[in-house]
């Protein structure tokens, strides 16, 4: 209504931010905690920023102003480079001591992880074994189903089916991993012993099933992208030669999309390697060397999560945990890099057609 009167409108637009700031400051008294704190200082910050935004353009020449803004934007652009270097630096800085203090042969060849015994043993093999076992099982379960789903969505499903399946996949991807872990612990923890007769409620298979459900959305959506990018001409040509839909899928579309699907698998493997909360809750966390999927295992990530809370700051154990972080960082970096390379190549190949 007031927008019919230009002067009122201008006055309103001028006053609105200040009003909002004051309101926020006033309402901050409703909450004694940190959100009230945010409202108080947020209100002040809003008013200060708005005032500067009104005054500064009038005193600073446009060229200087734009230059400053450009510098600010370029700085934010570089923030992720800074972040990745800081992560790299601080993980390595804290982990490096462990690589010096613990002989590498013990670290990567030791079969026992017992940092709290009188003679501490820092053998990473049981943890690496746990991570690999869970990751392998997860891939075996989730890849066929994920790719199958991707094929179904892009090649078979009608429009209305897609409208059900795609949001479902998206929602599934949004469920926090701690909830997956809890459900694995409670539901699968009863089911798996009942079916297989293993005495361990929490084991590698449990973690792998939980992670498979978690990662299927990732595989399905990336693989679907890859299948979607296969040129239409391939499909029509195959159909023209009398191939059934199944033959089209297995002999033409999947081979053509193979590298994209490989990237999907690699990315999901990278995520499995780095996943913490779900495996922490579902795998039982016994650091042992085993290939039995029904045995309880401890992954590298879970080990960091379990022990970091109790470890004395600056001890060899503390640095050893960071060293595990270094190993994790390096492995996931390599796997992600491989996935990226495969994807770029796939994009180039498809682009040429």
């Amino acid at each position: 209504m007031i927008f019919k009167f230009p002067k009122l409108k201008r006055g309103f637009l001028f006053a609105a931010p200040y009003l909002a700031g004051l309101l926020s400051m006033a309402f901050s008294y409703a909450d004694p905690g940190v959100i009230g704190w945010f409202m108080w200082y947020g209100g002040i910050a809003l008013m200060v920023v708005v005032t500067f935004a009104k005054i500064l353009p009038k005193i600073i020449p446009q060229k200087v102003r734009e230059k400053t803004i450009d510098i600010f934007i370029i700085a934010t652009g570089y923030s992720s480079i800074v972040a990745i270097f800081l992560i790299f630096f601080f993980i390595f800085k804290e982990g490096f001591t462990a690589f010096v203090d613990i002989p590498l042969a013990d670290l990567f060849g030791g079969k026992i992880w017992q940092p709290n015994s009188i003679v501490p043993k820092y053998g990473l093999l049981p943890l690496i074994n746990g991570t690999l076992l869970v990751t392998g099982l997860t891939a075996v379960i989730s890849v066929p189903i994920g790719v199958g789903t991707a094929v179904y969505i892009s090649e078979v499903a009608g429009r209305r089916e897609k409208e059900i399946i795609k949001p479902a996949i998206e929602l599934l991807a949004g469920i926090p991993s701690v909830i997956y872990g809890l459900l694995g612990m409670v539901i699968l923890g009863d089911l798996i012993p009942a079916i297989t007769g293993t005495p361990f409620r929490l084991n590698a298979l449990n973690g792998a099933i939980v992670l498979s459900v978690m990662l299927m959305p990732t595989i399905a959506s990336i693989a679907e992208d890859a299948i979607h990018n296969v040129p239409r001409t391939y499909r029509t040509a195959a159909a023209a030669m009398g191939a059934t839909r199944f033959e089209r899928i297995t002999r033409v579309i999947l081979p053509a999309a193979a590298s994209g699907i490989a990237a999907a698998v690699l990315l999901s493997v990278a995520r499995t390697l780095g996943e913490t909360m779900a495996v922490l809750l579902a795998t039982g966390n016994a650091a042992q060397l085993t290939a039995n999927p029904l045995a309880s295992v401890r992954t590298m990530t879970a080990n960091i999560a379990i022990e970091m809370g109790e470890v004395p700051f600056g001890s060899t154990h503390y640095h050893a945990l960071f060293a595990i972080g270094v190993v994790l960082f390096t492995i996931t970096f390599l796997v992600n890099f491989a996935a990226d390379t495969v994807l770029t190549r796939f994009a180039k190949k498809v682009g040429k057609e």
Partner: protein
Amino acid sequence: MTTVDIASLRPKKSRFVVNAVAKWVFRAMAYLIVAVLAGIIGYVFYRGVGVLSLSFLIEPPRHGMTEGGISTCIYGTLALLILTTAIAVPLGVGAAVYLNEYAGHTRRARAVRAAVNNLAGVPSIVFGLFGLGFFVIFLQIGASLLAASLTLSVMILPIIIVATQEALKGIPNYFREASYALGATRWQTTSRTVLPLSVSGIITGVILSVGRVAGETAPLLFTGAAFYLPYIPEHPKRQFMELSYHIFAMATQSIDIRKTMPITFGTTFVLLALVFGFNLIGIIYRMRERSKRESW
């Protein structure tokens, strides 16, 4: 010259049988995912809805967390998300603007893109270690809401950058060209044409990104989430309780699992509702956004 057996050229029946069976196998896989989602929602609802009440939402935990509600956890989660958003969104949007409007395809831009990709692939527990080593110890912030938010901000940064870039890419180039043709500078074009047009897309991206990290636990383990704290943090430098960490703590370190299991599932229900709330708002907003785009 060999004679051709006409019968061998005729399509084999079995091919069509395989085709029909395969269709149902693929369908079963796809619907398995839907069924799992429905199962998860149903199970959490079934186990959690019983404990849910107003007092559960507005009371702090009592008696070593075997009784009482989860108000401090909800409060901590909200505070964490507010502070994280306040830190990460300006950085992320700025970086996306840099990548999309300023950098083009230069070598530097490629370096930034590579960094964003790598950052997105770093495991969440490594972010936790980084937060501990850098924010908590090196910068001496201490285990606190601030340290946890900063850690989570670094983690959410690539997600926001990618989401914002999607929104910026959706703006047709002729808007930019028209702006430049009128003599506008790069910043004028960005701030008066590109950003206003893409603002709802950016908000969608931010909502979905925040929804994705709302349940992250691993980065908070060593950076400030408290096991048991019956009052709310009054300052960003205090420790805090958080929903997902609460679930983890109750599931693994409960003093009386039979008494606390209902509380755990009540908390799970609340967290799931929060995350789905974010996701649904984001998805619905995005659908409206798309229908608007079609008129361009």
